[in-house]
C-alpha cells in the first residue's frame, strides 16, 4: 500500500447542520461537472502511478496538489496541467492537498511560482502516466503501442475500436518503467490548458463548506486566546491570572512563546478554555506586567527621519554600469527626488490560527491554514526540537496568504500550548493581534537621481534604497556588509536602455519583525522607480509612454507590454478636463505587468480612480479567467497599500489595531479593471499572483500628476484630498 494511502478516517470532521458530514477540507460531489476535493479520503485499493497520480481500481483518479490554495487557484491550475497530458477531464479527478511528504519535494505556495515553477514537470508527470497506461494496454491486447491512444480516461485500440479504462490498467501500468522523456502534447491539441475552466473549490466557497484552518475541530480540543505584548522586544515581568480563572469555561493559563523566524522570541500567555469566547474573556481579565526594555519609545516619525539621514550615506553598490557619477556631474539637465513608502499589514481575512495536538508519543499533528506544509514542518522541527517525521501536517484552505502564511510562528506557539495542557488546542488570533503583531511589509525609502541629454534621452539613473532588511530580519547571522538582494528587487533589471546606472542599498537596523508581502519589495520600489522615470519624462518634455518606448529600442517583453497598453488604454485619446492617465510597468522575479491608471480630480483636491488597464505578460497561460482574477486582486491590494492607512508605530506599538483604523478598499471605491494577457508561447512562463501589484502605485502617482500637476512622492496618499 502506498504511503499516501495510510490515512486515518478518525480525522473526519463531523459537521452538524445542513451540510451533514464533511471531509476536513470540504467535500462537494458535484455529480456531472467539476472535480471533487478530498483531503482525508481513504485510498484503499489504489495504485500510485507516480507520486502525483493515484488511480483507484474503481477508476477514480486522485491528483496530488503540492501548492496550498489561498485564492490563487492551484486546485484548478495544477491538476489541469496533469489532466491535460493524462487525457482525462477535470471532472474525472479528485484533488488532494499534500502534507509535506518527502516525495513531493518542497511544498510551498509563494513567489508566484506554482504554475511557472512546475508547469513542465507536471506535464511530464501526466504524459509519463499516459504512456505507461497506453503501454500496459498494448501489452494486454498484444498490439503495437502505436495503434493505441488515450482519451477521456481510457486507452483505445484504433484498428479494432476496443477500449479499456485507466482503472483497469492501473495495476499493470504501475509495474512499468516510468518513461524519462515522455512525448508532450502539441499545445494546439490542449483541451484544458489555456481555457477558462471553473475552479473546483468555488462551489465549496459559495456555500460555507470550504474548511479553513479556522473551521477545524478535533475531538477533545480546547480553545486558546494568547496575550502577547504589542511593544516588540518586551519581556514578561509577571502576570496575575486569578480573575481570568474565574471566568466560566477557562481551564488553564499557561506560558508560551511566539518565535518569529526561529530567532526572535516573544513571551506569551495563553488562556485555554472550553470555548473561544471564554478564552477571550479570560485573556481580557489577565493582569500582565511587561518590561518594555525601552522599546516603548519607538515611533515611526523618528524612525523615518533616521532613514532620511541614512540616505546621505553611500551604501552598498548593487549595480554599476557606464559612468554614472561623471555623466550626472556633466549633464545639462539633472533631477533628484526622494520617495517614501509605508509599512503595511497583510491582513488576511482569516486571522492567524492553528489547531495543534502534541500527542503522548511526542508526535505533533497540526491542522493549519499555511502556505506550505514544508514550512510548518521546518518551523516545528526548528523551534520545538522535534524531528520532521514526527510532525503531521494537514493543510486547510487559506483565507488569504499574501506572504503572511509563509511564516509559521502561530503553529509552533500552538504546539507549545498543546504540550502544556496535554490536549489538542485551537489558537485564534484576534484581528487586533493580527494587525499589531506583524510581521509587516517593510517600508522602503528611495533616493533617486537622473540625468537627461540635450536631445531628451535618459543618460544616467540612480536608485538608492534605504530600508530595513528582510534578510537581516529572518537571519541572525545575516552579513550586513553585503547588500540584501531582496531589498533592491528589480531596480537594476528593468529593460530601459540607460547607459549609466549606479544603484545602491543602505541597510537600516530595525527591531520590528518584517516579512515578504505579496510582490515583496517590488511592491514599494516600483513606486519610486517608475514615478521617477515619469519625472524624467516630464523634465525631458516628453510623453511618459513615448519616453519609455524610446529607451526600448530592442525587442523585449517590456516593450510588448507597453505597446499593448498604449493600444488598449487608448493612451493618445484626449481625456476630460481634470482627468489624467499614468503608466508604469515593473519586471521582477515573479513576472511582468504594466498598467495604465485613469483618474479624475476635482477642484477640492479629491481624486477618484476611474479605471485601471493591466497587461500581464506570461508566455503561456493555464487559466485566463483566473489570471485576470489574480491581476484584479493585485491591483486592489496595491490600491490599499497606496491609499489607505498603512501601519504606523507610536509608543512602541502599531497605532492601527483593526479595520476601522487600518482601512481596506471597499466595493464603493472599486475602480473598473480591464486585464489583458500576453501569452504568445515561448520557452518561459511567468508568474501570475504578484506581478499585478507593483505597477499600481506608480501608475496611480503618475496619473495624479497628469491630472493635477502634483507629484506624489510619499505613500500612502489620501485620495480625498491630494496636496
Amino acid at each position, binding site marked *: 500500500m502506498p504511503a499516501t494511502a495510510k490515512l486515518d478516517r478518525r480525522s473526519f470532521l463531523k*459537521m452538524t447542520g445542513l*451540510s451533514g458530514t464533511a471531509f476536513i477540507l470540504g467535500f462537494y460531489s458535484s455529480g456531472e461537472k467539476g472535480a471533487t476535493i478530498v483531503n482525508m479520503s481513504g485510498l484503499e485499493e489504489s495504485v500510485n502511478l507516480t507520486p502525483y497520480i493515484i488511480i483507484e481500481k474503481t477508476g477514480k483518479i486522485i491528483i496530488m496538489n503540492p501548492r496550498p490554495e489561498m485564492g490563487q487557484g492551484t486546485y484548478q491550475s495544477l491538476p489541469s496541467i496533469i489532466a491535460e497530458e493524462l487525457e482525462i477531464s477535470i471532472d474525472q479527478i479528485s484533488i488532494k492537498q499534500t502534507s509535506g511528504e518527502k516525495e513531493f519535494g518542497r511544498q510551498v505556495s509563494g513567489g508566484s511560482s506554482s504554475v511557472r515553477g512546475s508547469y513542465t514537470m507536471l506535464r511530464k508527470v501526466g504524459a509519463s502516466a499516459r504512456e505507461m497506461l497506453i503501454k500496459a494496454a498494448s501489452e494486454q491486447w498484444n498490439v503495437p503501442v502505436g495503434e493505441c491512444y488515450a482519451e477521456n480516461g481510457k486507452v483505445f485500440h484504433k484498428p479494432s475500436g476496443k477500449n479499456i479504462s485507466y482503472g483497469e490498467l492501473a495495476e499493470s501500468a504501475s509495474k512499468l518503467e516510468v518513461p524519462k522523456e515522455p512525448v508532450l502534447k502539441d499545445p494546439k491539441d490542449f483541451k484544458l490548458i489555456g481555457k477558462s475552466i471553473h475552479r473546483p473549490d468555488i462551489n465549496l466557497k459559495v456555500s460555507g463548506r470550504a474548511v479553513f484552518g479556522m473551521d477545524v475541530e478535533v475531538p477533545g480540543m480546547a480553545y486558546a486566546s494568547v496575550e502577547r505584548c504589542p511593544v516588540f522586544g518586551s519581556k514578561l515581568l509577571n502576570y496575575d491570572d486569578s480573575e481570568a480563572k474565574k471566568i466560566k*469555561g477557562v481551564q488553564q493559563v499557561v506560558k508560551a512563546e511566539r518565535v518569529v523566524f526561529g530567532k526572535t522570541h516573544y513571551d506569551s500567555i495563553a488562556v485555554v478554555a472550553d470555548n473561544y*469566547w471564554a478564552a477571550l474573556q479570560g485573556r481580557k481579565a489577565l493582569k500582565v506586567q511587561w518590561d518594555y526594555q525601552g522599546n516603548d519609545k519607538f515611533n515611526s516619525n523618528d524612525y523615518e527621519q533616521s532613514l532620511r539621514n541614512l540616505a546621505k550615506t553611500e551604501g552598498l553598490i548593487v549595480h554599476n554600469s557606464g559612468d554614472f557619477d561623471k555623466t550626472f556631474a556633466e549633464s545639462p539637465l539633472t533631477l533628484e527626488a526622494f520617495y517614501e513608502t509605508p509599512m503595511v499589514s497583510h491582513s*488576511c481575512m482569516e486571522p492567524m490560527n492553528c489547531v495543534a495536538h502534541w500527542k503522548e508519543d511526542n508526535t505533533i499533528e497540526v491542522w493549519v491554514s499555511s502556505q506550505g506544509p514544508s514550512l510548518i514542518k521546518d518551523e516545528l522541527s526548528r523551534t520545538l526540537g522535534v524531528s520532521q517525521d514526527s510532525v503531521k501536517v494537514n493543510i486547510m484552505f487559506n483565507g488569504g496568504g499574501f506572504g503572511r502564511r509563509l511564516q509559521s510562528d502561530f503553529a509552533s506557539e500552538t504546539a507549545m500550548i498543546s504540550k502544556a495542557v496535554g490536549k489538542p488546542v485551537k489558537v485564534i488570533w484576534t484581528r487586533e493581534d493580527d494587525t499589531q503583531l506583524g510581521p509587516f511589509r517593510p517600508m522602503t525609502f528611495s533616493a533617486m537621481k537622473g540625468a537627461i541629454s540635450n536631445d531628451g534621452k535618459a543618460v544616467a539613473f540612480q536608485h538608492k534604497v534605504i530600508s530595513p532588511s528582510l534578510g537581516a530580519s529572518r537571519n541572525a547571522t545575516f552579513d550586513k556588509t553585503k547588500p540584501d538582494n531582496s531589498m533592491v528587487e528589480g531596480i537594476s533589471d528593468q529593460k530601459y536602455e540607460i547607459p549609466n546606472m549606479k544603484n545602491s542599498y543602505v541597510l537600516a537596523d530595525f527591531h520590528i519583525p518584517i516579512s515578504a508581502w505579496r510582490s515583496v519589495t517590488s511592491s514599494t520600489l516600483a513606486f519610486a522607480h517608475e514615478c521617477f522615470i515619469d519625472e524624467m519624462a516630464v523634465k525631458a518634455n516628453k510623453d511618459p509612454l513615448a519616453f519609455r518606448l524610446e529607451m526600448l529600442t530592442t525587442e523585449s517583453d517590456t516593450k510588448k507590454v507597453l505597446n499593448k497598453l498604449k493600444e488598449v488604454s487608448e493612451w493618445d485619446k484626449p481625456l476630460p478636463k481634470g482627468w489624467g492617465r499614468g503608466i508604469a510597468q515593473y519586471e521582477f522575479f515573479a513576472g511582468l505587468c504594466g498598467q495604465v491608471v485613469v483618474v479624475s480630480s476635482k477642484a477640492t483636491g479629491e481624486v477618484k480612480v476611474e479605471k485601471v488597464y493591466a497587461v500581464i505578460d506570461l508566455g503561456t497561460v493555464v487559466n485566463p479567467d483566473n489570471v485576470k482574477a489574480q491581476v484584479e486582486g493585485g491591483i486592489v491590494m496595491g490600491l490599499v497599500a497606496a491609499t489607505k492607512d498603512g501601519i504606523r508605530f507610536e509608543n512602541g506599538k502599531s497605532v492601527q489595531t483593526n479595520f476601522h483604523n487600518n482601512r481596506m478598499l471597499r466595493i464603493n471605491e472599486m475602480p473598473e479593471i480591464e486585464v489583458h494577457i500576453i501569452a504568445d508561447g515561448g520557452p518561459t512562463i511567468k508568474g501570475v499572483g504578484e506581478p499585478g501589484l507593483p505597477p499600481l502605485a506608480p501608475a496611480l502617482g503618475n496619473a495624479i500628476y497628469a491630472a493635477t500637476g502634483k507629484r506624489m512622492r510619499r505613500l500612502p496618499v489620501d485620495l480625498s484630498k491630494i496636496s
Partner: protein
Amino acid sequence: MASYNLMINDHSYSVDVDPQMPLLWVIRDFVGLKGTKFGCGIAQCGACTVHMDGNPVRSCTLPVSAMAGHKITTIEGISTNIDHPVQKAWIEMQVPQCGYCHSGQIMSAVALLKKNPKPDDAAIDIGMQGNICRCGTYQRIRKAIHRASELMATETKKAF
C-alpha cells in the same frame, strides 16, 4: 450561563452559554455551523454576516441574549444544493479567490436582492460596502449581483 432556544435555518437549537457571547461563536462553536466566519470582531468587515428575520446583521457583535424569538439564517440555510441564484451567479462569475469573506458577501447580497431585486451600481455600493474582501473580488461581486438579479427574475417568471 443561560439557556437559549435559537431558530437557525429553520432548525431549533438549545444552547447553554454566556448571555454576552456573540451569536457568531454560538453558531460556530456550539451549533457547529462553520460557514459563518470570524474576521474582525467589531462589525467592520462583514465576514460574519447572517440574517436576522431576513435582515443582514453582523453576528460578531450581537449577543446571543438578544436572539430570542428571531429567525436566524446562515450561509448553510440559503440553499441545500448550492443553487440559490446568488450562489449560481457567484459560480458563473467565479467570484471567490480565497473565499473566506464570501459567506458574508453572499448573505449581504441575498439580503440586498430581497429588498431591491434590480439594484443599480449605487445600490450595490450601499448594500455591499460593509463587507471587506482582501483578495479584491469586488468587480466580480458587482457583476454577480447583476447576474443574480437576472436569474431571480427568470425564476420568478417561471414560477408564474
